């Protein structure tokens, strides 16, 4: 195998076949993928959830993960947030010519680990190689299908006054991990991305009750964006309490330093759930037993007042609006 990916690896010829068989199928193979037909053929029966996402993170390796792990977890989590059991994923690479082959291998290995943990299969894929400068090292697209169990109806539009808002864990780790890697900022305490598949956590929550109203992973835009989306989609107000929000010390310190709000920082292994008040304690207890929910907390509730707005009771007892960030987060000047 060559040390670097060449344009020829995407040409469809022998080098392409070598790459696919030696690097992809050998690691990610399963009976459906191994056939290498033009499309994957499989049987599914029931209500399907289908999603797609493209991953362009820079840098492609960051503390706590890489673009491969992210591409699997992101799509698995999007399916899980509909209450679906994720089953099958497609995997598409757009590789910039010159990418070191060992970096691609590392990423494929981490994809393998992530699909094993999430118990999903890659059943179809594609590889393109583009000229230098036409892509930034590596882009990945994954699409996924899953089955939604009967009786499950989860949507951002389902929040009703009286419901409780549960957050599965501490905020902002992915955002700060990627940013610190990108900008070469070094912190005394390394901050790792929280990137993780959440389908098992969701399955355990659904085992308590299928009556989860809203579920979403607060990725780009952070918790602030997710809560504002729920408030607008459901036309309700949301009240949260600053004191209940879990933020780890290193993330808090990094945010203070850079002038960011942990509520705006991206997460890749967290979820926000809106559930009936009567179910909240049971669901919370179940979540805390899962490794990705140990820090879960009830952070607020759905109210009739101020529809479409999220209000936070501050540490000092006053209130303020929690708004979505606008565009890219930019550090403060002084």
């Amino acid at each position, binding site marked *: 195998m060559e040390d670097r990916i060449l344009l020829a690896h995407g040409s469809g010829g022998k080098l392409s076949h070598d790459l696919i068989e030696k690097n992809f199928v050998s690691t990610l193979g399963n009976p459906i993928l191994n056939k290498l037909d033009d499309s994957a053929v499989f049987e599914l029966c029931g209500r399907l959830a289908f999603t797609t996402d493209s991953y362009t993170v820079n840098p492609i390796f960051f503390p706590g993960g890489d673009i491969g792990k992210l591409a699997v977890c992101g799509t698995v989590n999007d399916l899980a947030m509909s209450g679906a059991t994720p089953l099958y994923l497609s995997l598409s690479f757009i590789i910039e010519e010159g990418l070191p082959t060992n970096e691609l291998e590392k990423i494929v290995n981490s994809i393998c680990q992530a699909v094993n943990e999430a118990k999903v299969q890659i059943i179809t894929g594609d590889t393109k190689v583009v000229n230098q400068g036409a892509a930034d090292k590596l882009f990945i697209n994954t699409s996924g299908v899953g089955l939604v169990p009967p009786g499950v109806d989860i949507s951002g539009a389902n929040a009703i006054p009286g419901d409780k808002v549960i957050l599965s864990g501490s905020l902002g780790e992915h955002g700060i991990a990627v940013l610190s890697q990108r*900008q070469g*900022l070094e912190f005394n305490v390394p901050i790792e991305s929280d990137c993780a598949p959440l389908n098992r956590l969701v399955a355990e929550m659904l085992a308590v009750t299928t009556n989860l109203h809203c579920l979403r992973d607060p990725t780009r835009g952070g918790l602030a964006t997710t809560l504002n989306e729920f408030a607008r989609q459901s036309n309700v107000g949301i009240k949260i309490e600053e004191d209940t929000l879990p933020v780890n*010390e290193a993330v*808090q*310190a990094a945010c*203070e330093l850079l*002038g960011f*709000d942990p509520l705006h920082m991206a997460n890749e292994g967290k979820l926000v759930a809106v559930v009936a008040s009567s179910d909240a304690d049971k669901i919370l207890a179940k979540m805390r037993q899962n490794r990705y929910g140990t820090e879960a907390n009830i952070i607020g509730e759905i109210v009739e007042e101020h529809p479409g707005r999220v*209000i936070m009771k*501050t*540490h*000092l*007892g*006053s*209130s*303020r*609006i929690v*708004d979505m960030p*606008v*565009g*890219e987060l*930019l*550090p*403060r*000047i*002084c």
Partner: protein
Amino acid sequence: MKFIDEYRDRELGKRLIARIHHQSTKPIKLMEFCGGHTVAIFKHGIRQLLPKTIEMLSGPGCPVCVTANSDLDKAIALAHLPNVIITTFGDMLRVPGSYSSLQLTKAEGSDVRVVYSAQDAVYIARDNPDKSVIFIGIGFETTAPTIAASIQQAEQAGIKNYYVLPLHKLCPPIMKSILDIGEVNLDGIICPGHVSTIIGSYPYQFIPDDYGVASVVSGFEPVDILLCVDMLVNQIETGQPKVEIAYRRGVKAEGNQPALKLMYTVFEVSTANWRGIGVVPSSGLKLNNRYQRFDAETHFNIDPGPIREPQGCICGSILRGVTKPPDCKLFGKTCTPEHPVGPCMVSSEGSCATYYHYGADYGG
């Protein structure tokens, strides 16, 4: 967390709030000069906790906001030059100049890069010897020493393709200017925290001496700000205006002398053009003769064209504390953080963006 939790202590905060309520008898106007303070005050909901006797006004201490359109136009004109890489702090990217913004210029193909420090810009210059790398030098006394350091670093490393567009501004002169204009009858000023770590508290002595106005340097945590307000109220109620520091862990009266020395090795005091206030003598910094060759404006021949001010935008009077963001007809309607008309709606520390994000009705 050390250095944060103790300054967000609820009980301490409540005691300070109670003391402020107890002390404050007459209506007063306080101005927080610094945009960072405006954000902290809104973020922690501090205005709601103060007695009705205290009116808080936001001042001109947002480096992006006070950058005049004429200066923004220069930065944009520089970005249009061939073989140039513009490096800037992120907040500048979205600010609309007369006809465009750096963000739009970037989308049109100019090489505009966000950096976290001027030192990063020097590294970009080192790595791109065939390009001219220009750093847009905005900010107050907090950032100026770091930019001075970047210039010295470039000189020592023999980097010949690094330039700075110096748009730095100085705080005490503009405070004096606002007090001289006299549109707002201020009783007290919350003096900037980060700036004061560099310049100290002595430069504010003219505020009580010449204008009889109370002044206290504050930090950015809720307890810092409440302590600062408490000290200001005390000065005003007892009729003893002076300069005090409520941010002892960061600010010494004499400031940071090595940083000031570095700043004045590279820069000298000059006039500066402030949005909403105009040209104020001795309120800016320019490169001195010794470092003139790093000045982007003198090195490159640019014609930014005629200046156009946004119609209906009252950023100028907001920056002077005369009006508040919700007084503007455009606020929240045609002017939003997504589609800003004026710079105060763009910068994360701009008054309009702060009122918009944290809720004008929750503290405005």
